């Protein structure tokens, strides 16, 4: 309700709604919105519905706003569905302000059985390259919720820092966090999880292993091969190098205990163990790993298999011969072209292709002494580029069900709280619509980037009214004149 009162968003048209004043003055008043749950089934709080397994999540709803002044109706079978109906492109986005009057110019509105095309619609934030205070994360969760994103994939630790205080392993954060104030305590994690859940968002925790773990070496050098080895480019895709000694039994036990400790801190039914960018040379150069492989008679991939009994990631499946349970979900990140081969192996998967969705691409190389360096995934991914992504491309009809959805990530080598909002919003809203709306709009027309722009401007300006530092996608002149700044117009 407070959004409807406080948004005070004027229409994005020339005159900002001044031309509506006559129509508004004789418009009927909407007295109320009646929110009700359908059916006799027992209902649960949003926070409970939001963290159910993907297959059991029910987010559908129907909304009717009559134009004659009779009450509006919002119905759903779940509280989560009611939340979806209350937010985003639907109810609380219908209203504009003109001189203190809140009005819609689109009545009557009838939305029947709106429901997401895909159950997984996420955003990834890396809080290891640079730290993000929890207030910034909460603000981001608010924005996510306003576009019906339902997964916060929290890439909480990595090679640069280990900001998570794990009760059984306090030494990891004490030595591996950037400072004692740049730590997420168990209370912080609980705070984030419950803040997210009541907004319909499940928190998927990511402890990236066995690569990307140099920060563990500050407290447990015995578990890390090639810690901080140089030249770092030979041992890791970015500095500092360091990977868990997967061939060591002690390290395998340590990692398993660590993962299970973190898993008990979170309530989601999903958990990510990462598994990207494993560097073979690091293990080749590590005497201990080589000795352990020799004594056990295993290959590196066999050792990895043992290490990762229950661990999951896309390039694990593609590049390594790993045994994974078929309930594993793969995240396709390198390129969208990898999705069909994951599907061919019958794994469920999430789209996160760097060639469409990476929010950090195009901001230049960040490594020092490299004046000509560009980002590895140039160019910048515009909202339009993300929007035209086809989640079902090159999938057979029997593979369609394997696609659970997708997410836009922010890797934070060059981001901190200072540019979190501008680099994320409104671009991350692009994939939010791709995976909620699917191929066709509610009116049956194909989803189309040209007509989407005006709506994206709208949600961007609304986000600004709600305190998010979302960037301008175009000069304001264009935002007020849909279509006039299109290519070819």
């Amino acid at each position, binding site marked *: 309700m407070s959004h409807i009162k406080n948004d005070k968003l004027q229409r994005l048209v020339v005159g900002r709604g001044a031309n509506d004043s006559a129509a508004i003055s004789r418009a009927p008043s909407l007295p109320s919105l009646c929110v009700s749950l359908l059916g006799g089934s027992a209902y649960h709080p949003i926070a409970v519905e939001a963290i159910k397994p993907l297959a059991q999540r029910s987010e559908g709803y129907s909304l009717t706003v009559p134009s004659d002044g009779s009450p509006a109706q919002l119905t759903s079978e779940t509280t989560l569905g009611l939340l979806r109906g209350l937010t985003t492109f639907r109810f609380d986005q219908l209203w504009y302000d003109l001189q203190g009057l809140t009005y819609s110019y689109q009545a009557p509105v009838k939305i029947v059985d709106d429901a997401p095309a895909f159950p997984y619609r996420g955003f990834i934030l890396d809080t290891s390259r640079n730290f993000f205070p929890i207030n910034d994360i909460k603000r981001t969760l608010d924005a996510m919720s306003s576009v019906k994103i339902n997964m916060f994939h929290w890439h909480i630790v990595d090679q640069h820092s280990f900001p998570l205080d794990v009760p059984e392993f306090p030494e990891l954060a004490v030595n591996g966090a950037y400072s004692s104030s740049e730590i997420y305590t168990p209370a912080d994690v609980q705070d984030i999880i419950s803040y997210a859940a009541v907004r319909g968002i499940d928190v998927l925790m990511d402890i990236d292993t066995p690569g990307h773990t140099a920060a563990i070496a500050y407290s447990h050098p015995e578990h890390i091969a090639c810690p901080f080895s140089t030249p770092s480019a030979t041992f890791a895709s970015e500095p500092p190098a360091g990977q868990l000694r997967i061939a060591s039994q002690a390290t395998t036990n340590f990692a398993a205990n660590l993962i299970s400790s973190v898993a008990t801190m979170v309530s989601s039914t999903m958990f990510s163990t990462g598994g990207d960018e494993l560097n073979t040379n690091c293990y080749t150069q590590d005497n201990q790993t080589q000795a352990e492989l020799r004594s056990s008679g295993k290959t590196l991939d066999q050792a990895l298999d043992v290490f990762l009994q229950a661990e999951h990631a896309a390039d694990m499946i593609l590049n390594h011969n790993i045994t994974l349970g078929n309930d594993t979900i793969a995240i396709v990140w390198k390129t969208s072209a990898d999705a069909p081969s994951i599907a061919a192996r019958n794994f469920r998967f999430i789209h996160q292709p760097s060639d469409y969705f990476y929010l950090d691409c195009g901001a230049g190389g960040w490594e020092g*002494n490299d004046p000509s360096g560009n980002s590895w995934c140039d160019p910048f991914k515009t909202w339009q580029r993300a929007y035209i992504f086809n989640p079902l491309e090159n999938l057979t009809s029997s593979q369609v069900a394997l696609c659970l959805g997708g997410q836009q990530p922010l890797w934070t080598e060059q981001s901190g709280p*200072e540019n979190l909002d501008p680099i994320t919003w409104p671009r991350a809203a692009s994939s939010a619509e791709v995976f909620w709306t699917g191929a066709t709009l509610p009116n049956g027309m194909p989803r189309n980037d040209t007509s989407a722009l005006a709506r994206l401007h709208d949600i961007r300006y609304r986000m600004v009214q709600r305190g998010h530092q979302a960037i*301008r996608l175009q000069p304001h*002149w264009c935002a007020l004149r849909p279509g006039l700044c299109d290519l070819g117009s």
Partner: protein
Amino acid sequence: MAHILALILTALVVCSPAFALWPLPKDLQTGSKALRLADDFDIQLSVQRAPADLQAAVARTKGYLKTDKLQRLVVGRGENDRTAIKSAKELSSLTVSLTSNETVRSISEEAMDALEDRVETYSLTVPGDGSDATLKANSTLGLFRGLTTFGQLWYEFDDITYTLEAPIQIKDAPAYPYRGFMLDTARNYFPISDIMRTLDAMSWVKINTFHWHIVDSQSFPLEVSGFTEISGKGAYSATDVYTSKDVEEIVSYAAARGIDVMVEVDTPGHTDAIGQSHPEHIACNQGTPWATFANEPPAGQLRFTNTATVNFTTDLIAAVAKMFPSKYFSTGGDELNEACYAADTQTQQELNATGKTLEQALSTFTVSTHQALLKLQKTPVVWEEMVLAHNVTLSNTTIVMVWISSDDVVAVAKKGYRFIHAASDYFYLDCGAGGWVGANPSGNSWCDPFKTWQFSYSFDPTGNLTTEESKLVMGGEHLLWTEQSNQHNLDPIVWPRAASGAELFWTGPGKNISTALPRLHDVAFRMEQRGIGTIPLQPLWCALRPGTCDLTA
């Protein structure tokens, strides 16, 4: 042999401590003693009838010394300095004085002197034994630059403000007189508090010119006395306007910080916003398809063949020039679209009637607006096309801005005009953020890729120029065009990258990029302590470990 020498020199530079001054002074000697500020540390202003802006600058510097609380960017953030700090000598005073006996002028006046008359030289001595530090200059502007340097010397640990590199001796002067930053406030509007915050950050890295691209085709936010209808109809809204009071406030805020405000009223292209109130002066007003008539929507250019339009523009430029005390004024002149005039019946009729070519008419127009400026003792500034693409009569005092490409520098120099580096291939802060035009999912920015601080830093201002031509280089600037920016991403898109150009044009080119990075981290973190939303250039891990995240490390 030369190679061996170069290697040794590089090694020496790399081994020297990462002294965190930005821009790096011309001549800097440091020691390795710890020195802390006494609790009652004070800055003594030993200047007769010290101008108010100098007193205010001293007060701001004292404030920063207290509130910066920047910890050293090393592992432990200064923890290892604890012992050295405890036993360090205390500095209790910095004495600030002028070396000349001439009439004392304010920073603000000196900041607006002609480029060739601007004196920014200073010398700063901080002894290692606790005796008084001294800052001397023969201008208050020079003293201001020195205060800025002094404010960057100090770190905080455990409530102690200290340096580890006393004694310090600095003799400093800029390599180039023009070190700018350009902001476009027409594509999207910026509130004046955001501009002021930007001016503060500019002054901390000794940028001395705010090039204010205040109006353009999308909006005309400047309220001009006698022409209030232009902003009345051409601003985005009644609140998205800069009033004459706002302008005065920004000009004096800038001047007190050693910054001259050079306004730009881009003509005759980029003027469609004038068409909202004066359609009679605008050819191809919002003409479509826009791509035929302009580089970006909306199309619309001044009808410079029309005498009424020439007079209107001349009066407008004179009226704006009177609002800004700077000796410099830019009339723009980029991206003139000829198809717009070819399709404009009125322009064609006027050309027929006068028998002039379009170029001749453009010259008449430009001479008229520039005469108005010269009459007001202002030096005209133009974009490069005015000398490279058109045949326009210009005063030989005109300053040219090279923007299209650094490849055009030599051609501009050959024309004999003084010029400013603003090349898109090195200094455009908006490049690389994707295409913003709609219905164009594969669109990238026209000037891809993103310009990193390192790339800007590697620019050579006198590359391919003769010694004589090199004297024409006034300096350079970073620029932010704001199709995809407003106050929400102003800080992150500008800082710390624009500091790269600030050092390039203060210290001069050819400095080591690897040792520059820790200093740039340092100034960025200090800016953040002072309330600027600078981005991290690297993971904090790298910032605490200089060199470790270099390409070949």
